[in-house]
């Protein structure tokens, strides 16, 4: 019982100590925390610096979407007034945000960085149909500002879109993270890569080190022995050529 009393006293001290700390929560509608750069908010459709839409209507995003919530219908660009630099453009583009799981696979799939995820998250629907955003809400303004759908939002969110896309890099290889591999955005130009993760692209040593780290070899001295499958097979009493039955 004596141990129990000590433990209770310890617990009471923990709660008392926490009572002296500053609250970690904020008064949300009045105070909005800055979001992390890679926040998975709602999507935006980006434009090039000259105002052309990046989407080429290829439907790769719709194909990869695990929630099947993207609907794309492409159309041929009118030669006299092309909407996108490609042959086709996204004529209809809809995302159902009641189904989206914010996985970001669409962002990864997109060959032109047309679709990225913004920091906007304050949805409020009064109707299921309202949750289906069309191009009118998804497409950014010609100056690159996302349209916001609600009355309450963090103005900083309008600046940030596609942080996650830029952090993971289109190549899918961590050692290229420092190198912008994306096209310019309307209103923002070529956005800088997220700092502090990858190697300095100018330094091949660092790039290589980062690459090693990526496959888990750096910092452990010598590389572990490669597995010799032939030797293993012999140990198991199989000759190299025989297939186990």
């Amino acid at each position, binding site marked *: *019982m004596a141990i129990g009393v000590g433990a*209770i006293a310890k*617990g*009471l001290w*923990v*709660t*008392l100590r*926490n*009572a002296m*700390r*500053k*609250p*970690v*929560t904020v*008064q949300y509608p009045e105070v909005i925390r800055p979001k992390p750069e890679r926040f998975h908010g709602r999507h935006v459709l980006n434009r090039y610096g000259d105002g052309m839409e990046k989407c080429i209507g290829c439907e790769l995003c719709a194909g990869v979407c695990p929630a099947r919530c993207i609907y794309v219908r492409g159309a041929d660009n009118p030669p006299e007034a092309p909407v996108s630099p490609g042959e086709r453009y996204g004529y209809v583009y809809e995302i159902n945000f009641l189904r989206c799981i914010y996985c970001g696979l669409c962002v990864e799939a997109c060959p032109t960085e047309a679709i990225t995820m913004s920091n906007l998250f304050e949805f409020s629907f009064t109707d299921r149909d309202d949750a289906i955003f069309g191009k009118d809400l998804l497409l950014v303004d010609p100056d690159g500002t996302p349209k916001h759908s609600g009355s309450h939002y963090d103005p900083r969110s309008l600046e940030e879109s596609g942080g996650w896309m830029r952090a993971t890099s289109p190549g899918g290889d961590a050692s290229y993270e420092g190198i912008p591999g994306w096209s310019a955005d309307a209103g923002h130009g070529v956005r800088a890569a997220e700092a502090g993760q990858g190697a300095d692209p100018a330094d091949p040593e660092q790039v290589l080190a980062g690459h090693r780290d990526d496959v888990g070899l750096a910092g452990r001295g010598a590389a572990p022995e490669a597995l010799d499958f032939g030797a293993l097979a012999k140990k198991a009493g199989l000759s190299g050529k025989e297939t186990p039955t």
Partner: protein
Amino acid sequence: MEFDGWTALIGTGTVVAVFVVVMLMVILAVWAERRVAAVMQTRIGPNRAGPFGLLQTIADGIKLLMKESITPRQVDRLVYELAPLLAVLPAFLALAIVPFGPGFCIGGQGTDCSGGYFVDMQIANLNVGVLWFLSMSAIGVYAALLAGWGSGSKYPLLGGVRASAQVISYEAALSLSVVPVVVAAGTLDTQGIVLAQSQYRWFLLPLFIPALFFFVAALAETNRPPFDLVEAESELVGGFHTEYSGVRFMLFFLAEYVNVVTISALFVTFFLGGWTGPYPVAGSVNWAPLFGAIWFLAKTVCIIGIFFWLRVTLPRLRYDQLMALCWKRLIPINLVYLMAVAVWVAYQATGDLPRLVGGG
């Protein structure tokens, strides 16, 4: 003093005053509990309704009043309806014997207040006050038990079964921790117990073990964490009040907090010297009753604060631990302590050790 209109008026006034004070305390307690919990969990807590969120309880109450009171089809109607009332009524009735102050005299003279009316600062000045409190808290068990049985649903039933075992066991521990107080004070009258503790002869120090056990048993009696096995929302959905909603749920909620206030007030009465305090030393000052009430309420608020603190800190006990604590620790130790107190009191009175075993 014969019974006339004035007596009736004074009686009614006392009841209303106590009711108002206690309701205010309950309202503040519900709010304070949430704020205390928030502060200890580095959150902010309710702060929207009124200044500092003080009106949060009112808002919650209005919400519960306006909610639909659903009656599940398989309930035992009579038992189901009776249970919330059985929770609230004993909770308030137990308050009747709590002395809020020394009492004062209107229009009379002298120490016996001849020719005037003496106002007790308690609803009923019973000479068996302690027994009244114990019996009321015993009736409170029926609320959880009947709610569990009458709901006709398995989680409330489990809660009700737990309630019957837990509260009846701790009732024994609670009573046994009060008995040393009664023995030491030599009276069952709560006012008398307070007077026995004047001049800072608080029972807390000589009767520390019973005081501690009273507090533990009080937590269990009121189904407060860490003894909230009767509700145990992580195990039993809502325990005995799972099937209750709207006004009926509010009655259970109200009863819980009234119980907390009552039992804290009684802890103060039994162990912390009740309304006695440093300023009006012997009730000589005109405003002694007022100061008495202030001391009393301040002490009570501190005890309620400890209830909240424990709630935020401690995880719920396992059921066998709960029972073991009661029957293997609290009750035997209390019995031994009671014996020791009795021997001591007898020794003080007679100057001789009582002859317990054998003649001689």
